[in-house]
């Protein structure tokens, strides 16, 4: 075994049973390392079920700040008898395994560094209560691991205090149990693996947060006023967090009156219908869902496209088709969202890559929806939405709301009337009035059927073409308004990488890995659809461009092909679609494989 120390660069994989309370212990472990100033990320792999099935939590500790998934496990904490054998078999030789002594995992692999722990006995020491014993076992392994990795006990204590904020008894119990684990380890285990943490100062001032919570914060500051939703994993927590924030920050402390409304709809058809009704009536409205909900919203979204009603739709993607793997991550709703509904439809889609962008793009989405008067999708995913990500703190928005082109009573008095769908400004974006506007000419009639500039029913070919061409013009003009691509151009690079969303983090690492192999790369991160000129320039500037994404069909590649056909010869594809977050090794291999043939 390599006796060289490996400091601040490893991953811990904790295997437990869901519903067993391990989640908070894992959070404590993660936060304690974070508090030591070391970059971390945490990914929860859980089943589509409430209790009793295997679940894994992976903490990646990385001094260079890589926070993508790393496929290889360095330290396994094998607490789940159901999966322990498989878990340990999957380890590479030389890895570390912490496990309950009675599982006899050392009999299975001898090329692994074992730490066998009598968790049962230790739990007996921690409490007399049977139920509590089970729960506390989780924090005991945290104590053991803390000792092995040299995580400071003060940070464990602090993390526990944060985790159980307000519940003094729970805090005391947990700290006590953690210490039992730690003490036992100190006395009984002979440290013989290379992994250690050492204080750094790379997390100072940073936050740790899930993407769904970040998006909720964004919606809060975007001034959302009508939220409609139907529960679905992995999107539920977005609205649930938002409800909590709205309750705290948008409820009048004295009167209890709310500057928002939340409706738990009966399904997604209703959820989006309500959001559309609310958007039409002038509120900032949104709904949030995942794949099956997107499918159910298809008809209504086409309606909103055609009648030009602002609405924001979050899609926290999970693995499809159908129910698919509801607790696994994916980027496979891209084409559905972009083209959602029958007939000729195209939608603006924002593609946050980080919790920071979940926050920012939530705000941008509302501005865009009202400016463009159209549905705007924000495509997050389970990895981004439900896992814990380190980030710089969010910045308070400076930009005022953009409410788009709305005519008031006074405007109408001045103008003497208006044509709801008349492109007076020539930018494809027309003026609307809100219901309740006190003017005899304020009213108009929204219809999903053919209509002319004045919103009157029309089947005339000319009116229809005017409308459809104008919608296209508007879509084209959206390109200047949406979040722009982020390009890191390397003039030595023959190859470029295009990626979006949570794939970003694996790309950062990929590029460094490739650089180590002396392969220079440029990088273009897509941040929204429609695609813009810059993407074309980026592709143009390279010999080969790898589009890296997390779906089977290469959906972004499809869109690039559709929209930049003259550049298709340069486009190559790397696709990851087994439900796990993509990792850099996979991308590197995918690129190298194809480079072999290319050169």
């Amino acid at each position, binding site marked *: 075994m390599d006796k060289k120390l490996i400091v601040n660069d490893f991953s811990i994989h904790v295997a437990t049973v869901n519903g067993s309370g391990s989640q908070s212990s894992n959070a404590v472990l993660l936060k304690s390392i974070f508090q030591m100033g070391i970059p971390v990320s945490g990914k929860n792999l859980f089943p589509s079920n409430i209790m009793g099935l295997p679940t894994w939590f992976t903490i990646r500790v990385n001094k260079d700040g890589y926070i993508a998934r790393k496929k290889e496990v360095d330290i396994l904490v094998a607490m789940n008898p159901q999966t322990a054998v498989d878990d340990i078999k999957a380890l590479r030789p030389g890895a570390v395994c912490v496990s309950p002594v009675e599982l006899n995992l050392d009999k299975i692999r001898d090329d692994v560094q074992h730490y066998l722990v009598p968790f049962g006995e230790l739990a007996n020491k921690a409490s007399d209560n049977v139920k509590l014993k089970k729960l506390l076992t989780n924090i005991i392994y945290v104590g053991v691991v803390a000792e092995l990795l040299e995580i400071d006990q003060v940070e464990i204590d602090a993390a526990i205090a944060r985790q159980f904020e307000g519940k003094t008894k729970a805090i005391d119990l947990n700290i006590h149990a953690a210490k039992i684990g730690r003490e036992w380890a100190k006395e009984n285990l002979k440290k013989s693996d290379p992994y250690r943490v050492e204080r750094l100062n790379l997390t100072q001032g940073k936050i740790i947060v899930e993407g769904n919570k970040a998006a909720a914060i964004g919606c809060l500051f975007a001034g959302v006023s009508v939220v409609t939703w139907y529960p679905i994993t992995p999107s539920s927590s977005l609205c649930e967090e938002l409800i909590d924030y709205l309750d705290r920050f948008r409820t009048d402390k004295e009167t209890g009156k709310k500057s928002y409304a939340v409706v738990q*709809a009966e399904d997604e058809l209703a959820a989006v219908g309500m959001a559309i009704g609310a958007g039409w009536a002038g509120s900032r409205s949104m709904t949030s869902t995942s794949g099956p909900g997107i499918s159910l919203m298809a008809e209504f979204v086409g309606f909103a496209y055609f009648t030009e009603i602002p609405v924001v739709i979050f899609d926290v993607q999970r693995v499809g088709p159908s129910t698919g793997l509801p607790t696994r991550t994916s980027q496979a709703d891209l084409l559905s969202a972009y083209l959602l509904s029958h007939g000729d439809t195209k939608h603006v889609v924002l593609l946050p890559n980080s919790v920071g962008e979940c926050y920012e793009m939530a705000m941008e989405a509302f501005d865009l929806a009202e400016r463009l008067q159209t549905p705007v999708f924000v495509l997050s995913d389970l990895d981004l939405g439900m896992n814990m990500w380190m980030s710089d703190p969010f910045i308070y928005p400076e930009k*005022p709301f953009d409410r788009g082109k709305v005519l008031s009573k006074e405007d109408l008095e001045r103008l003497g009337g208006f044509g709801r769908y008349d492109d007076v400004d020539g930018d494809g974006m027309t003026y609307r009035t809100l219901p309740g506007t006190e003017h005899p000419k304020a009213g108009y009639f*929204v219809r999903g059927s053919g209509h002319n500039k004045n919103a009157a029913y029309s089947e005339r070919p000319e009116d229809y073409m005017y409308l459809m061409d104008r919608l296209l013009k508007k879509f084209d003009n959206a390109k200047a308004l949406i979040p722009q691509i982020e390009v890191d151009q390397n003039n030595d690079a023959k190859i470029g990488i295009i990626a979006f969303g949570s794939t970003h983090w694996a790309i950062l690492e990929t590029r460094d890995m490739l650089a180590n192999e002396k392969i220079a790369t440029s990088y273009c991160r897509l941040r929204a659809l429609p695609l813009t000129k810059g993407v074309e320039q980026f592709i143009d500037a390279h010999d080969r461009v790898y589009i890296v994404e997390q779906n089977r069909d290469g959906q972004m590649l499809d869109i690039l092909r559709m929209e930049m056909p003259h550049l298709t010869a340069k486009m190559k594809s790397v696709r990851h679609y087994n439900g796990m977050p993509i990792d850099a090794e996979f991308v590197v291999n995918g690129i190298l494989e194809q480079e072999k043939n290319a050169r």
Partner: protein
Amino acid sequence: MVSSTTPPAPKAPVTNKIGLTLADYKGSPSTLCDGCGHDAITSQIIKAFWELSIEPHQVAKFSGIGCSSKTPAYFLSRAHGFNSVHGRMPSVATGAHMANHKLITLGVSGDGDTASIGLGQFGHLIRRNVPMVYIVENNGVYGLTKGQFSATADIGSTLKDGTVNRQTAIDLCGLAIELGCGYVARSFAGDPKQLVALIKGALAHKGTALLDVISPCVTFNNHDGSTKSYKYAKEMDRPLHELGFIPFYEQITVDYEPGTVQDVQMHDGSHMRLKKIGNDYDPTDRFVADRAIHQSHKDGTLLTGLLYVDESQQNYSSLANLVDVPLASLGQNELRPPKSALDEIMAELT
């Protein structure tokens, strides 16, 4: 008789309390078939709103898809209107109401739109008790798609080509009562007086008010064998009472014999006045209503009038405890919390 050649002095157009004429409540010309029941209902909607002196711009009109759902274009053209997708008007209206709870919300739907594709949303609208007047123009068929049976077609009734419906009808009034709706009425497009009174009552109700109005489709469902034809409805119409509506701003007069009239007070202070016609009927008892409705199916009669009323329930937006100003009218100052709020949140996440 004395004949005169002097033309009569042009009458000043009659205006209501807010100075508007009946014409100010009209919409664009109807494109429905001549004689369609829906057009008759449109007229009564216009009349009711005009007589109640409702500001047209305060109204929001909603519909789904169907001949019936086209009609909001034919009245109150000064109001904003929303012709949505098939069967899903309730959700749109719910959202719009939350965004602006000051709007007077009127929905017009068809039996296909409500009882077939829209059954789920209809049920949940009622469960939420979203304040709106919900008129079903019920002809037992899908008019716009050329006359197939809808889910309100009575068992045994026939299509023009003789096809017999073998399924029991969904009774939207019975259903609404079961789901807790606080204002449930049935009427007939051929009874303008009753209909106007019921629309006014519905407007005075504070939650969801359902009006199931038999509205014959002259083109596809007005033949013998139809139980939704003008002829059948006229013959079988059994009004529960004679109905009047007394708006809150008018004095209630008591010029009737005791026991002959029941006055139901609506939440805004208006009254529905129910004059007894035949048997006693207490519209505040849901069990009475349920029994009467289902008995009428057995009898093959059309029971019309105010079937059920309950003014005690809270509606959806009042439960939501909204600020007084419509959410849609709030500006950035009200909607975006201050920087201190973000700081607080960030502090919790470090």
